[in-house]
C-alpha cells in the first residue's frame, strides 16, 4: 500500500493511483482473484466516483450509467439476461443519496442483482463534501466544521428493507474480506456488500490522522468483530462480517433489527 495520497481525491494522480492509498485498488485485485475462483459476473454496472474504478478489475461487460441509476438499470439488464449475474458498484454518496430509494426498493423486491458499495463516508471526487453516510460530527474537506447530520447505515437499511444477503467489511480485513467477497458473489439476490474504505485526502487529514495508514488503523478500531461487543455499537462503530442472514447459532443480539413477520 502506498504511503502517499494526493491532496484531493483523484487529484492530479487520478483515481486509480489515489485508490491505492485508500485500499480500493487492492479491493479490486482481491475481487478479481476471488471472482476467478467463484465465477466472474458477466455484467457490471457503475456510474462515477471511486467505486466505479472497481469495474476495471473485472472482465465483465461494463455499463457506465447516469449517477444514481445503476440499480434500476441493472434490474432491467438482469431481467433481459435471466440467469446471468449482474454486479453493481456504488459509492456511499450515490447509494445513500440519490440512489437510496433505489437501494431500498431493490432490497424490497429482491432484484436479481448484487451491489458492492464502497463507503468512504464522503463525496470524495465531488470535492470533499459530506455524503449522506458521513457520521455526525465528522469533518471533511468541504465541511471543516463537521457534518451536522447523522450518517445513513446502508447495510442496516438494506437488511431492514428485505435484502436476502448483507455483509460489511473494512477494506484492510484481508482473509475475512476475501471470504465475505466469495460469499457475496454467490449470495442469493438482492445482496449488498458494504466495504468501508478511508478517504485520507477528503476526510483523514481533516480529522487529525497523520497518514492514510493511521486512518486505516482508526477505521479498523471502529469495526466490531465480536458479537458480544455489539452493546458498544454507536453511530461511529459498526459490526462487520455477514450481517444477514444471521448465523444459526447467533446470539439473540443479532445485528439485524427485528424483521417482523417475514
Amino acid at each position, binding site marked *: 500500500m502506498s504511503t502517499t495520497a494526493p491532496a484531493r481525491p483523484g487529484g492530479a494522480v487520478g483515481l486509480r493511483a489515489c485508490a491505492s492509498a485508500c485500499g480500493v485498488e487492492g479491493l479490486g485485485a482481491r475481487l478479481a482473484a476471488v471472482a476467478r475462483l467463484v465465477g466472474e459476473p458477466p*455484467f457490471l*454496472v457503475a456510474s462515477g466516483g471511486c467505486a466505479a474504478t472497481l469495474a476495471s478489475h473485472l472482465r465483465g461487460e461494463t*455499463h457506465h*450509467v*447516469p*449517477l*444514481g*441509476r445503476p*440499480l*434500476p*438499470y*441493472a*434490474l*432491467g*439488464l*438482469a*431481467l*433481459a*439476461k435471466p440467469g446471468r449475474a449482474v454486479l453493481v458498484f456504488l459509492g456511499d454518496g450515490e447509494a445513500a443519496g440519490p440512489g437510496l*430509494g*433505489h437501494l431500498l*426498493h431493490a432490497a424490497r*423486491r429482491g432484484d436479481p442483482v448484487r451491489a458492492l458499495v464502497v463507503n468512504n463516508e464522503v463525496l470524495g471526487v465531488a470535492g470533499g463534501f459530506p455524503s449522506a453516510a458521513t457520521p455526525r460530527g465528522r469533518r471533511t474537506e468541504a465541511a471543516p466544521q463537521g457534518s451536522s447530520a447523522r450518517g445513513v447505515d446502508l447495510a442496516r437499511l438494506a437488511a431492514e428493507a428485505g435484502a436476502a444477503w448483507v455483509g460489511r467489511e473494512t477494506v484492510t480485513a484481508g482473509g475475512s474480506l476475501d471470504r465475505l467477497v466469495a460469499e457475496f458473489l454467490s449470495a442469493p439476490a438482492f445482496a449488498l456488500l458494504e466495504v468501508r474504505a478511508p478517504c485520507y485526502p477528503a476526510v483523514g487529514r481533516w480529522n487529525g490522522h497523520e497518514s492514510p495508514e493511521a486512518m486505516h488503523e482508526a477505521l479498523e478500531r471502529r469495526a466490531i468483530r465480536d458479537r458480544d461487543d455489539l452493546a458498544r455499537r454507536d453511530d461511529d462503530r459498526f459490526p462487520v462480517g455477514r450481517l444477514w442472514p444471521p448465523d444459526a447459532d447467533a446470539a439473540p443480539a443479532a445485528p439485524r433489527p427485528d424483521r417482523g413477520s417475514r
Partner: protein
Amino acid sequence: MRLLLGNEALALGALDGGARFYAGHPLQASAEIDRTLLRSLPERGGTAVLVEDEAAALAATLGAGAGGLLGVTATNAAGLAMAGPLLAHAAARGIPALLAVVGSQGDPPEAVGRGERPGPVETASQREIGPLRWCAGGGASLPVFTPASPAECYALARAAAREAVARRGPVVLYVDHVIGHLREPVDDAPAAEETPEDAESYRVRDAQVLVVAVGIVARAARSAVRIARERGVRAGLFRPVRLWPFPDALLRDAASGVERLIVAELSEGQLVETVATAVAGIAGIGPRPGVRSLTGAGMLVPGRIAAAIEESA
C-alpha cells in the same frame, strides 16, 4: 377492429412493434398504458415490472434495451423532466427504448365554451412540445411522434418501436391528455403494416391560410378549415406527425403558396418559433407578421380557430 383508448392502443402498438419489456411507475395520465402492458406482456412472453419512480422505470427500460429486450415505459410531464440524463445516455450509447409521454391535462377551462365545464379528460395542455425538443439534454433532438387518434397511437407506437431498434436509440411518443383518453375504433391487427408519413397535409393545395397544429388541436383545426372554407376562406392544415426533429421541408412544401400561417397550440407559443424559422424566406410570408401564434389553455375549439383563420385572411 376494437374500441380502444389512445393510451391502450399505444401500448398494443408498442407490443406489436416488438417491445418485450416494461418497467413503470404508474401515473394517472398514463395509467392505461401501464395497465395494458402489465396485462399483455406476460401473455406474449415478455417481462413487466413496477418500480419506485419514473427515473427507475426509464433506467430499467434502458438496462433491458442494453440487454437485448426492447423496453417501453410511460410517464407524464414531471417524469419527462427527470428523464434527460437517461435519454441522453441512451442516445449516446445506442440503447433502443420507447418512452411514451402523456401530456398534462391543462388549466381549467375558460377557453372552453361558456358554462360548459369540462369533464376530467376533456382538456389538455401541450406544454411538453418545447421540452420534448431537447429532452435528451444538449444533444440532437430525439424522434418524437405525436398521434392525433387512438388508431394513430397504435400505428405510431408500432413504427416507433421498429425505429428504436433500427436506429439503436430512444424514441418518444407524445400523446396529449385528450388523445390518450379518447376511445375510438382501432384496427389492432392490420393486414399490412404501413410506414406512417412524417406529416399530414389537409386541403393545402389552394390554401391562403395554413394552420399548423398537432394532437387534439389538429383535429379541431381540421374542423376549423372546413368551417372557414364554407365561409369562403381558402384554409388548409399542416399536421406534423413526427414532431421532432420538425419536418421543415414538408412544411415548406405545404406553405409554398400560402399568405398566412397560424400556429395553434395549447402552450404559450412553444411551436411558433420553429414554424417561423422553417418558412422564413418563402415568398409572400413575412418573417413574423405572416406567422401568427394562436395559443390557448384547456382547449382550442374549432370556432376559435376558424375565427382566427378569417381574421388572418
